[in-house]
């Protein structure tokens, strides 16, 4: 709070003071009070008024300065009420009290929503586990009756269910994964087998190179990531999928490359964003724009980094890099 700004704010008061001073001078002059006396009166009153303003300014300045400083520096602005100490002037006290009340009510509200979100997520988890029973039952029935016609649709249902589950997990603040030594090859093979029928139906050839490595990750989450990438390759007309791994001193990079329709350069920076569908999503099969978003959220939680490269009409390559951490690498 600058003094000039403070005075500007008090402009009406200053004008009232000056006008009353002038009127007093005119009134006293009419009674023939001598000029010297009037001058002294002027100086005394002006000095007095100035002192009042200065005193008031100095009293309030530290409080408001601190308030402004805090709000600028705070990461979470709503914590401001925790930083405010009640000052010794009335308006400040009122402000501080109001802020505290505000903060209280907001914290209650946030806690309520957090609890509701957690409950909702828990219910999603339970629901997913429940719905998997009939899906599993149907899948076995199809197999036992030798009827594979329905299997593919069931597989799709199962995939969508997994999407919901992992979306809920990726949004969750709690930790429900474990990072442990995982065979890259095993994780890939498990997913590949799950999608074998679809891959073969579409005549997609898989090849792997150099996957005999252990990485630090959650195997289930990695499996889901693979399934999303494979799903995309199938959706976007790939006929070959090549998965290679590369080791550098501080990380292991996995390249998941297909020869599908690729991604337009203008869309490339946005593919990991929520609900982004882009050109391919419009011109090809309906896309929800959730798959890669969930992938990137999961990677972020697991501490992996994910990026994409593509040339339209040639290839798409998703690169995931797994950090190597000696601390985690305990047997």
């Amino acid at each position, binding site marked *: 709070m600058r003094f000039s700004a403070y005075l500007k704010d008090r402009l009406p008061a200053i004008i009232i003071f000056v006008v009353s001073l002038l009127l007093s001078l005119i009134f006293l002059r009419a009674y023939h009070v001598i000029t010297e006396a009037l001058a002294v009166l002027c100086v005394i009153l002006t000095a007095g008024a100035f002192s009042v303003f200065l005193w008031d300014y100095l009293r309030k300045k530290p409080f408001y300065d601190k308030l402004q400083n805090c709000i600028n520096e705070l990461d979470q602005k709503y914590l401001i009420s925790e930083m405010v100490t009640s000052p010794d002037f009335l308006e400040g006290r009122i402000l501080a009290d109001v802020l505290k009340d505000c903060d209280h009510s907001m914290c209650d509200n946030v806690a309520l929503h957090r609890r509701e979100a957690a409950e909702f997520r828990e219910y999603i988890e339970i629901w997913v586990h429940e719905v998997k029973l009939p899906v599993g039952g149907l899948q076995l029935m199809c197999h036992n009756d030798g009827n594979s016609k329905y299997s593919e649709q069931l597989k799709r249902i199962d995939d969508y269910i997994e999407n919901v589950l992992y979306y809920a997990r990726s949004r969750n603040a709690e930790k429900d994964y474990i990072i442990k030594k995982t065979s890259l090859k095993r994780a890939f093979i498990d997913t590949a087998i799950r999608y*074998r029928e679809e891959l073969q139906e579409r005549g997609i050839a898989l090849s792997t190179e150099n996957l005999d490595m252990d990485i630090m990750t959650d195997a289930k989450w990695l499996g889901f990531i693979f399934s999303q990438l494979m799903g995309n390759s199938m959706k976007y007309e790939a006929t070959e999928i090549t998965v290679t791994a590369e080791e550098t001193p501080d990380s292991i990079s996995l390249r998941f490359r297909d020869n599908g329709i690729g991604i337009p350069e203008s869309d490339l920076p946005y593919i990991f964003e929520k609900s982004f569908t882009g050109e391919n999503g419009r011109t090809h099969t309906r896309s929800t724009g959730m798959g890669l978003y969930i992938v990137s959220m999961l990677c972020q939680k697991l501490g992996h980094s994910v990026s994409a490269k593509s040339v339209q009409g040639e290839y798409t390559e998703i690169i995931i890099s797994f950090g190597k951490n000696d601390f985690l690498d305990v047997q």
Partner: protein
Amino acid sequence: MKKILIIEDDAVLSEELCTLLKNSGYEASRVTDFETTADQMRSSDADLILLDINLPFTGGETLLQEFRKTSDKSVIMLTSRTTEIDEVLSMSYGADDYITKPYNPTILLLRVSAVLKRLERSGSAKVMYQDAEVSGVKGTLTRNGNEMILTKNEMIIFQLLLDRRGEIVTRDDLMTTLWDNNEFVNDNALSVNVSRLRGKLAELGFEDAIETRKKQGYVLR
């Protein structure tokens, strides 16, 4: 015939599992009364137990922990819980494997036979096909001093056929097993591999060892 005990409280799943296993040449039985699951587990003469985690009365994890105190029989956990934490926990309680619902039938059978095979392998010595010695490590078939080298794919196919000798092995089973071994072959490649294997067996004097059952699969005689 290997015996398998199914402990799964979802009646439909349990029944279908039972049918699946019976169709695949196992003797399967089901637990239907879950108040005495622990006793039934103990008294069962099954070679392998499929154990669900979410069970009424006593949960699968507790059952397994208790069961492990007295028995080292093979147990595969079945669950619809899909976190890695659940899997690690189950394994630490002494499960031999862990399969999540919904089951892919081929994978389920693969895992079941893998666990049972592990059981067998630990005991038996040489693997023989008639009078020929099969060496998975060397990838060879030897008969009367004639050594025939099989490729990795041919060996995988031959071993699966040999494990289930006399039974029909579907192309689906062969394919899944090959994929499980990092060999992502397609339909044509599988046919080529089978016919090469036939040729090699014929060279060793086993003419028509692999019989084709139309629309069903192959049988090793």
